[in-house]
């Protein structure tokens, strides 16, 4: 008789946002993640000068609402700053 083992759920993979671990339990729309990081975008969702890449692929602004970030993804949220 095989001993029953309790069902285990896999541990949530580590999501990285801008190089830092980010607590993400469930998938989140890109737009919501950006709003959490960028006060200007949280205040005005038409704010420009911001770009996002998920797993090294740029996500166009038009797809921010419909694209979700899954736990374990590598996300970059960047903006234009003085320099160059």
């Amino acid at each position, binding site marked *: 008789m095989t001993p029953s083992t309790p069902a285990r759920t896999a541990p949530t993979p580590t999501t990285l946002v801008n190089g830092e671990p980010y607590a993400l339990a469930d998938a989140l729309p890109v737009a919501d993640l950006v709003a959490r990081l960028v006060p200007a975008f949280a205040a005005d969702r038409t704010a420009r000068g911001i770009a996002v890449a998920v797993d090294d692929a740029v996500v166009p602004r038009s797809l921010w609402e419909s694209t979700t970030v899954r736990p374990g993804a590598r996300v970059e949220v*960047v903006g234009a700053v003085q320099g*160059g």
Partner: protein
Amino acid sequence: MGTGGASSLLALEDALVASGTELTTVALRRFAPSAGGAGTSGDHGVWALLERLGIRALPNTAGCFTARDAVLTARLGHEACGTDWVKLEVIADDVTLLPDPVALIEAAETLVREGFVVLPYTNDDPVLARRLEDVGCAAVMPLGSPIGSGLGVANPRNIEAIAARAGVPVILDAGVGTASDAALAMELGCDGVLLATAVTRATDPVRMARAMRLAVQAGHDAAQAGRVPRREQALASSPVDGVVRAGNLDLAL
């Protein structure tokens, strides 16, 4: 004129307007991942400033050490700034800030293939400049001297050689310290100058921006006006005959 180095957005605004530039560079940097975005690296308010002034932003892959990072940054810049123009910078180390030629060519090829208008920041090697043009860059931007050094044009003969042979615009980019450097670059045949530190970190940025604007115009006019050749010996500019000579015995005879 670039936006790097200004002490405040207000100072930057005044200098940009005084310079008369229609195009300015911006870097792409991560927003801090803390709640509320506190402690963002770099002031992200520059975007709103440029929109208000009607100055086009040229995203720069500043600070990238690899072709891969530069390509991703360029794509992010395209998305953030809404332009397919990119200043391509791939540096070899963070001390000299000199371009990495091999990575630069690799990134340039990739971005040209993706349809970017690539403006590469390069060194003053005429061969590398030609290679960048060969892979489809829209311009070449050789440094005068290291970024932020203010040392001017370290190798004028190389810059002149690059300008003479290039089939694309040549923009002197990096190392400009004062107005005469910008004028010299234009006299050497450059089509323009890109500078930031020389203005943003000057004691009076507005005045230096105005000086740079005038210097670029002056250098351009001088380059077009056909300068006199350099001579080993003097050549009088006044007639040699009929000179007054006090107490001239020859005239008395």
